[in-house]
């Protein structure tokens, strides 16, 4: 009788383990490398920054714009990769806050991606005042313009609607800007300086992977997630 119960529990445990293992195995990562062919336009030195005494003292050399962050072999950073058409899956409310910092009179990072409902914390690490001016274009995402004094409290933002490249700017220092993309699911990422990206834990199914660069536009690729990881490489070109 007792051995029967033990056997029953063991079978249940094995079945549960198999189901669990099965479900883990079915969630895969979509990975890839993004490259740029051709020579991008030269970046510009942000000379007005060095003309501002408050900002200049935080830099030894003149910073430049970084619209095209390209590696030696053409690896392209700051590309927002997402799964097109995946909506209503946001886990933003429980996700840890994303952080946008103002450091050296520049926004860090320049390109960021968050979920709808996810808290975005904007910090001011500078010893000078900034105004944090969010300029969304999608209805339902309100425009706001708030002062942030040096050492002032963090400002929190939450967006309800998906939007690509929602601009944050500072009008006190007009060269300061960042672009925040908002998605209605956790399936997105931003390519690193090596051009690589990973969208983790994608359930099985057919998807369209979309890679969007602020300057170079958008490319898409259809993929099917089955048992293993999927690769989707993108190659942008300067025309």
């Amino acid at each position, binding site marked *: 009788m007792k051995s029967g119960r033990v056997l029953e529990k063991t079978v249940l445990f094995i079945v549960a383990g198999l189901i669990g293992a099965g479900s883990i195995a079915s969630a895969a990562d979509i990975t890839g490398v993004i490259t740029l062919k051709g020579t991008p*336009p030269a970046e510009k030195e942000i000379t007005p920054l060095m003309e501002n005494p*408050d900002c200049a003292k935080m830099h030894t050399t003149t910073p430049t*714009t970084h619209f095209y962050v390209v590696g030696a072999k053409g690896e392209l950073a700051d590309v927002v990769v997402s799964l097109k058409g995946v909506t209503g899956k946001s886990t933003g409310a429980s996700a840890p806050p994303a952080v946008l910092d103002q450091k050296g009179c520049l926004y860090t990072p320049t390109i960021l991606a968050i979920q709808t409902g996810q808290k975005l914390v904007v910090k001011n690490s500078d010893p000078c005042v900034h105004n944090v001016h969010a300029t969304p274009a999608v209805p339902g995402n309100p425009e706001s313009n708030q002062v942030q004094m040096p050492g002032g409290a963090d400002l929190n933002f939450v967006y309800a609607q998906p939007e690509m490249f929602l601009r944050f700017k500072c009008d006190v*220092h*007009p060269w300061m800007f960042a672009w925040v993309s908002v998605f209605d699911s956790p399936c997105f990422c931003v390519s690193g300086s090596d051009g690589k990206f990973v969208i983790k834990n994608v359930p099985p199914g057919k998807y369209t992977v979309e890679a969007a660069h602020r300057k170079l*536009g958008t490319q898409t690729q259809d993929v099917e997630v089955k048992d293993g990881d999927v690769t989707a490489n993108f190659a942008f070109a300067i025309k």
Partner: protein
Amino acid sequence: MKANAVSKSNPWLYWFAVLTALATLALIGIGGLVTSHEAGLSVPDWPTTYGYNMFLFPINKWLGGIFYEHSHRLLAALVGLMTTILAVWLWLKDSRPWMHWLGVAAFLLVVAQGVLGGLRVTLHMDSLGIYHATIAQLFFVLTCAIALFTSRWWMNLQTGRTGSSPGRSLAKPGPQPADGAMETSRPADKSLRTLVLTATLLVFVQLIIAAAMRHQHAGLAISDFPLAHGKFWPDTGAEAVARYNAERVSINAENPITAFQIELQMAHRVVALAILICVGIAVFCSRRCQSAERAVAPPTHVSGYESTVAVRLSLFWLGLILLQVGLGAATIWTNKAADVATAHVLVGALVLTIGALWCAIAFRQTVAAVYDRRTEARRSQSAATIGAQPAVTANK
């Protein structure tokens, strides 16, 4: 009181009006710098500045974009005060009722302009900036017109237009046509007036286009001149616009350009050409008027040939427009450098004002000419009546 009633010139009032106009021009300049530096929203609150009463905002906090925006607000307050004083002064001291209402109009316009500027900040609406910029130009024209209307020159234009008057009327002296047709109705004069009016309206349209361009906050939609994206007429297809955006590296947080913005800049170029042609013809017409005048009449004892003023005005206008074209090109070649773009705004305001004031003078001349003709007719009629009376008495 009728429009043609004689009013005494008040030099203090005149110089105060001139000062108000100059302050307004300076205000437009600082406003231009605010937009050129993309600093319009660097002070997020209004009418306070970072929570301070704006007149008490510490000067050590006037940094970056705040400097331009806060200076603009303070100068706007000064212009508002000056306009209020001007309106009250006109109401109390100017004998012409229409000048009272012109003062009231200036007061209302400056109040509306201030509120519009404030709403632009609090409502975050770019489109309000277009209205704000356009009304600024109209307000400048109005203050300049008030200065003109309170000047002795204008008063003299009111009281007489022939050699006996020290006023330098633009109307032609010389023998009056026997049939009573007005000399200001000569075809050459009419053509000149029509050209001036057309050019002025075109300049106004041009300024609206310019305000729309600047308040898109998209930087230069076309970055080359005289060609446009390397062509006589640029490609505005989706692929081409995407390419332009990819090629553009800008320091400031500008919006991406659109096909509409490219077309808007092309419209700006076309209208500029139309204005240049119009004013070029105006110069030609005014010189032709001068030649015609020299052929029929000697110069007046004060100002020589009266049409010389029109020639000089048209040449000055043409010079300003050529300067404006140069500044427009420089705005593109310097990638919209803030000082160059602002100079372009200021000269644009002057070009509009010259045209508008010339229109006012031409209108005034027409009215004055009609008034003179009627006065002359009445005088002749009374003289004839007085001359006839003794004969009637003698018969009795």
